[in-house]
Structure formats: C-alpha cells, structure tokens
C-alpha cells in the first residue's frame, strides 16, 4: 500500500514553563491511501490535537509530518491553506455549517473559495453529493432549517466536495441519535469503498469504531495500539 501520510515523533506542548502541558509525546502514525480507520482513546489522550495537526490547522512543537510526499512542517500558512483546501476534508462533531447559507452553498464552499466564484460544475457536483447523501429535496434549504442528521450529512458532502485524499472526522456521530449516526457511517463507508477516500474517524463509540477496518488507539499522547 502507498503511504498517504506519515507522522513521526510528533510532540505538541501547550503553554510554557510550569504551565506547559505536553499533549502528544512522540506520536508516530502512518495512514495508507484508501484506509478507513477509527481513532480511539479516552478524553484528553490527544485524539483531537492529532486530528488538528493532521488537518494542518495546527503545527506540532516538533516531529515530522509528510502527506502526499510534501513536508508540511516547513510549509507556510498560505501553502497549508491551499493544501488543506485541495487534499483534506473535515467533518466536525457539531457539523459547523455556515448558518446563513443553504445546504448547497455550504457544500460547494471549498470549491467556490478556491475558484473565487460558484461555478456551474461546482453546483452540479454539490447537487450530486447532496443527492447521494439523500438530501436532493433539501439542497436549497437554509442550513439552520435542517435536522441534526441532515446537517451532518451536508457536512460530509462538504468534506468530499474537492475530492480530497483524506477526510478527518472528529466525533462525526457524537451529536446524533443512533439511527442518524448509522446513516452517516454507512455513507462514509460507501464513499470509502467506492471512491477510495481515506477516512480517519475519532470516536468514543465502539460500535462506530467497529465499522472501520482499522482501529488506532491513542493514550497519553502516543499510539498505543
């Protein structure tokens, strides 16, 4: 298998001096293209910090971070922003849609922001993705008028908009009822299977984790299993 991303000896320390807290303590991890992995571990183990670093939203204090052959530690903010837009999708626990926009406008945001306008091909892909998420009838609904499960499906569609190689999901079902959670996970599994998109899903839920082919356990700032 080809390594999609690799991090080595990641250290992340928040604060300085006596108040310094080391959240990641030399964590190393490799994700191959097409994987669907669950990130498990107790609260405070460093799962969210790891996802944030892998998503290029934060830089580690030390260590190596390479994705698609690019050294992301050396990249500046502008380069990381462009890289993130092109290659990484995010699904957050609280969907985090833009409230003043419709479902379709939310989905096509990553493409529109890259191209500087909403193009017809982007709209077409956005519609396709929403239809795939079972939201064909909701494309022009304001985000605030959607149910929790629908919002999370819109968030998944948005994460897939630019056909990223990696989607990072932080507790994507943590705020959903069991039925909605399973619907979202089935969609994620289907996309992983059909399009080969790599998913790394942080979760506390063993049932959700069991739907992933690989389980990565983080404890005390390191991969423990």
């Amino acid at each position, binding site marked *: 298998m080809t390594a999609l991303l690799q991090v080595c000896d990641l250290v992340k320390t928040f604060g300085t001096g006596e108040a310094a807290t080391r959240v990641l303590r030399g964590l190393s991890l490799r994700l191959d293209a097409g994987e669907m992995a669950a990130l498990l571990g107790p609260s405070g183990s460093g799962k969210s910090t790891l996802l944030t670093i892998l998503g290029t*939203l934060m830089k580690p204090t030390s260590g190596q971070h390479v994705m698609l052959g690019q050294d992301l530690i050396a990249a500046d903010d502008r380069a990381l922003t462009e890289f993130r837009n*092109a290659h990484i999708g995010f699904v957050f626990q609280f969907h985090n849609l833009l409230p003043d926009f419709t479902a379709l406008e939310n989905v096509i945001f990553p493409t529109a922001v890259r191209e*500087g306008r909403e193009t017809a091909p982007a709209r077409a892909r956005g519609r396709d993705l929403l239809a795939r998420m079972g939201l064909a009838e909701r494309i022009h609904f304001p985000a605030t008028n959607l149910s929790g499960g629908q919002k999370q499906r819109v968030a998944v569609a948005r994460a897939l908009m630019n056909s990223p190689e990696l989607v990072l999901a932080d507790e994507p079902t943590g705020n959903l009822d069991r039925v909605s959670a399973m619907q979202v996970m089935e969609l994620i599994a289907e996309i992983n299977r059909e399009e080969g998109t790599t998913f790394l899903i942080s979760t506390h839920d063993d049932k959700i984790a069991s739907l992933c082919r690989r389980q990565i356990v983080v404890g005390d700032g390191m991969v423990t299993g």
Partner: protein
Amino acid sequence: MLYALKIAARYLTASKAQTALLVLGVAVGVFIFIFMSALIGGLAQFILSRTVGDISHVTIEAEPDDPALLISPAGHVLLVAERGRTRTASLSEAATWLPLIEAVPGVKAVSPQITGAGFLTRGAQVEQVSVTGVEPGRESAILDLEGYMVEGRARLGAGLIVLGRELADDLDLSLNQPLRLQSSEGVTALLTLSGIYETGNGALDGARAFVSLSTARTLFAMPQGVSQIEIKLFDLNAADATALRIRGLTGLDAVPWTDGAEQLMEALSAQAQTGYFLKTFALITIVIGVASALLLSTYRRRPEIGIMRAMGAGRGFVVFVFVTQGALIGLMGGIMGAGLGYLALLPFPPREAFKPGTLPMDITQGSYGLAITLTVIGAILASILPARSAARVDPVTAIGQ
C-alpha cells in the same frame, strides 16, 4: 473575489435590522456632511455676493504722474510741482486694451469708467457726490444697477443722471426733474434725473451718481481715455489669477478685489475651517460606527470564520469579506445620506434668490460625490481593523467555541 463579495452581501442581508441601523447611522453622518457643506458653502456665497458681488473683481486704475521736479546742475531742487488733487489720472489707451481684456477667459464684463467728485445742486440744496461715468449699455456690467432700480430706468444718455434713493430723498428729487452737477474740475452740467436705485448700501445710495461716459468726459475735462477699467468675472475666486494674467497681457496695474480684503478672506477662511471641522467630526463618527459594528460582527462570526479557514479560505479572503462589508455599508449609507441631503435641501431657494433672514443653503454645494467617496473610503478604513482581527482568528479555537 466575486465569491467574497457574495459572502459579504449575505452577511449584511442575514442581519437585516442590524445592517439597516448601521446604514442609517452612516446616512445620518453623510446627511450632516452634506447639510454642512451646503450651509457653509451657501453662507460663503451669500456673504461674498452681499459684499463683493456688486463691486469690480479686477480694477485697473490710471496711475497719476509723479510730481515734477526741477533740479539745478548743482543738484539743488529749484521747483516742486504739487500733484494735482482734483485732476483725474487717465488711461489714455483704454480703447486699445478693452478687446484684449474682454477676451481673457473668465471675464464676464468690462466697464471703462471716468470717476471723480462733484456737487449736486437743486435750488439751495447742495450734496457732495462721487460721480461715475459709464458707457451706455454697460450700466449694469459691474453693479447690477438695473436690478436695483426702484424708479425709472438705468439707461444713461446725454444729459441724464441716475441717483440713489437716499440722495434723491435728501435733494427732494423725483423722476425727470432737473438738477445741476458741478465737477471737481469746475465744469457744471444741467442734468435730468432718469432713474432712482436702492441697493441698501448707504455709501452707494447716499453719495453716488451715475452719468454717461460722454457726460463724464465733459465734467472732468477728459476728452480721451478713462480713469479706470472695472472688470467683472464669472468666478470671483479667480480674481487673483485673472488680475495676474491681465497684468501680463497689458502691462497695466490690474488689482484683484482680494487686495485689501484680508479681513473678509480671513473670516471666510475661518468659516470654511469650522465647516471642515464639523464635516471631519461627521466622518469620524461614521468611521467609529462602522468599525465598532464590524468588530462586533467579527466577534459574533468567529466560529464561521474558523470554519472558512478550515475549508481552505485564506487570510486575504477573510479580510476581503469584511472590508467589502465595510465598503458596501459606506456605499449604501453614502448614497442614502446624499439622497436625503439633496431632498432636504430642495425646498431652499437657489443661490441667486438668497434673501436676508433666511438660511442661505446652496444645494449645488452639497459635495454629494465627495461625501459618498469619503464615506466609502472611511468605511473601508474602518473595516480594516475588524478584517485583520477576523483574519487572525485561530480556526481551532474558533471552531471549538
């Protein structure tokens, strides 16, 4: 950046009440700006028209000859001829210069004149007057004599004289009555009162007599030339430049009205500066209002900014969204304020019809374009701080909020 414009517009329309209040606040500021511009500009116009509107804007006066001296070969002064006190100096080649002066850009009218002093006599009554001889047809070239006529006409011809109301009353004169005018040269003419004017200016109404240029030639024994040329300009503010130009063209000593009007100019300048202060305060209010509203908006939208950054929006994109909001608020408020200002100024009479006792608001001096431009620039500047603050939002922290 079209997309950033869409997002900016969406943010503004998403909070309609807040945006409406903000735009209204900006519009009020612009309204004050325009109202002050029209008032200060109109007031200056009114003061100028009342003080210098009826005088010559550029005057060319004949320079009296230097007193003659007779000096002995040893260098002693043998004879000194005193400068004539009554003899009027002459611009002997005035006729040559007139077409040239009339062709100078900005010159509205030219009036060659013979001026001097004299005594009006009617029966036993005698009044000292200042006599101005003007060419028939140019009676209203400088002073709007026709406009000030209360009786008769301003038409001057051989044997005719036009007097002010006060002077006519002092001499108990009515139209078509005869009177004698004796000039400082000792020449007496029998004239008929053909018109009475009233300017409201005592110096004019009580001591100035207008006769035709030919009558003045006889009275002041000046068969050729004139004693002064008065020039009226379309723009009295261009007097200094036009005087220089005429001086360069003719070599004559052309003097603008601003010479000797320092106090008036200082008063107008002080008034204009007061206007600048008030307009600056209005603009500062706009800037503070826009900046504070956008800072609040930035704070409220921190999670959304974080999401945008996470989805690949660069710092420049975020800055553009908020600066565009500022520009749109400035543009909408500017246009609305300018429109309100224009509507509010419409009922006021035009500057030509300013009357004492009313607010001299000049709708043409509202500075509408300037007000809108400065407001948009001000709003853009006001939005830079909030925009930079938004661009610095840490997506991780913001999304976690």
